[in-house]
């Protein structure tokens, strides 16, 4: 169930002799981009489906995900309980549908916070010379600890599995990646002649960041954010699976699987269905990220 984020550095081979052609102004560039990158389509559609499921969970699932019914424990899939029931007789379908909420909130929340904080740290490191060494050594130190271990440690420190705490723990573990990427993007952009020209035009440091640096770092960081989202979903599932994350009162794909772990060989359906949900969602996010990456690839970015 590990999905390593694909490599960032792969470039699409130029499709035509570049120098000779100047791109014409594009009307609905959005539609063109989508048509050009079917992976983005597929990922986006899948993700939208998962989101709809999460939003309309109360309507989609017919039963209460937390309602225990010892009479119908560990049932195989049936007309009443499509995915069967777990050891406490709870409906796995209902739990899985509600689990999408946790997964999406954690994924998006972590992506958002980690990106914002990581960008601020990265911009500072890229711009303030004396701070660079200190900040980046701290980031290196954090990156030397596997993200999952760091998250477990932080969860232990925070004592108490709430969604907010999970987001916080995973965010902290993900920040260094964004900070590094931002810093390297800043360092490469600030060497460009037009930044030098901006200095000569009297534009202030903040103005340069806002006008010239940020717009040129947003694209790679957005792509990175999707990968962080995917990895946060997996981390959350792992945390909940090993009991360091959310309590079973809040259904999460990780803790549903944990419930079924002991019975995995006789009742695989308890583990199987949430696992499928998790895989499909993570795949969708990664596809979206890949599509985005192709769309903002430096060689093609000139067409914007």
């Amino acid at each position, binding site marked *: 169930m590990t999905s390593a984020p694909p490599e960032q550095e792969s470039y699409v081979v130029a*499709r*035509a*002799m570049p*120098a*000779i*052609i100047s*791109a*014409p102004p594009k009307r609905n560039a959005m539609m063109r981009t989508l048509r050009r990158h079917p992976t983005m389509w597929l990922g986006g559609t899948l993700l939208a489906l998962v989101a709809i499921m999460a939003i309309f969970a109360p309507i989609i699932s017919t039963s209460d995900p937390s309602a225990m019914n010892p009479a119908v424990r560990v049932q195989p899939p049936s007309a009443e309980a499509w995915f069967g029931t777990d050891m406490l007789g709870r409906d796995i379908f209902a739990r899985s549908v509600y689990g999408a909420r946790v997964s999406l909130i954690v994924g998006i929340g972590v992506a958002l916070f980690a990106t914002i904080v990581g960008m601020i740290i990265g911009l500072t490191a890229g711009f303030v010379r004396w701070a660079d060494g200190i900040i980046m050594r701290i980031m290196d130190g954090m990156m030397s600890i596997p993200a999952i271990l760091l998250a477990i440690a932080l969860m232990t420190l925070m004592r108490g599995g709430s969604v907010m705490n999970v987001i916080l723990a995973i965010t902290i573990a993900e920040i260094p990646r964004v900070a590094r990427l931002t810093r390297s993007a800043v360092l490469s952009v600030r060497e460009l002649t037009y930044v030098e020209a901006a200095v000569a035009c009297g534009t202030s440091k903040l103005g340069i960041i806002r006008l010239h640096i940020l717009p040129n770092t947003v694209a790679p960081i957005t792509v990175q954010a999707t990968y962080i989202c995917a990895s946060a979903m997996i981390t959350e599932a792992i945390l909940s699976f090993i009991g360091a994350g959310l309590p079973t009162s809040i259904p999460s794909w990780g803790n549903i699987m944990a419930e079924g772990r002991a019975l995995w060989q006789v009742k695989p359906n308890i583990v199987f269905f949430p696992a499928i949900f998790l895989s499909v969602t993570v795949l969708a996010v990664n596809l979206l990220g890949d599509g985005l990456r192709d769309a903002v690839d430096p060689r093609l970015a000139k067409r914007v």
Partner: protein
Amino acid sequence: MKLLEVRDLQVHFETDKGVNRAVDGLSFSIDTGEALAIVGESGCGKSVTSMSVLRLLPTPPGKIAGDIRFRGEDLSTKSEREMRRLRGGEISMIFQEPMSSLNPVYTIGRQISEAVRLHTGANTRAARKRAIEVLILVGIPSPEKRVDEYPHRLSGGMRQRAMIAMALACNPALLIADEPTTALDVTIQAQILDLLRDLRKRTNTAILLITHDLGVVAEFAERVMVMYAGRKVEEANVADLFAHPRHPYTQGLMDAVPKLGQVRSGKMSKALAEIPGRVPDLTQAFEGCVFAPRCPRAEDVCTHLDPGLEEKADGHFAACHFAPKEAARDKA
């Protein structure tokens, strides 16, 4: 028989906007030992032409049509393998940026001797000897030492020399030099041009020089071809061309460059002549003369009738309805 003969070369690129006619109906030839220059501004198709001759253009998106003969043999019938044998052997090429054609992880000597072994089948020792020989030929100091150096250890001028050495290692009959001195400083450029001139004399290698610099053309070439928008607009021997440019584009180019020595000659011009407008979009079809929209002499006929290349004087061709014919020559 000409050494290289190109007839009606067409190079087209498929683009989003349509077909880009990078080269449109170009014919030229080079004799053994001759120095022919192709001049033109960026996008005129001069580099594309040379790459098509060696079949180095990626196809697609490129499409090459026309007749390219080397020593009378049609190059389009050759297999990729035969072409590889030809490239770097009978025909070799030097580029503007030497670093792009030297492999940074091998020593200069290894790269040269590899080429020698590939093309002549010489053994390792003979190939190395040849490598040192050509390094001496191109004037690299202490070649026995330099032969074991990596490209990044050499300065720009030395790298260009090393690349020329590599190009010459297999005694090519034709050397295609694409902007060979553009990236170099004037004093180094003077050295390299001197070297190429000297080599041509000694080895009787024909040189096809591609450049945008009229000064380099005047110093180096015997015959000159001026290209504009994928076509040849004028061709003449070098003295004739500079003394009597017949195509308005050639004239415009000559007037647009400041000439060193204005102070001494007392001919200080206040403003340079400009060629108004810009190069046409080659994906658009057009009628008449390609240069007409920018031409000061253009008249109605130019906008609908393609002038075609015409011999205006002995060996002097120009594609212009109003280029003066023979008579103009008597003024000289």
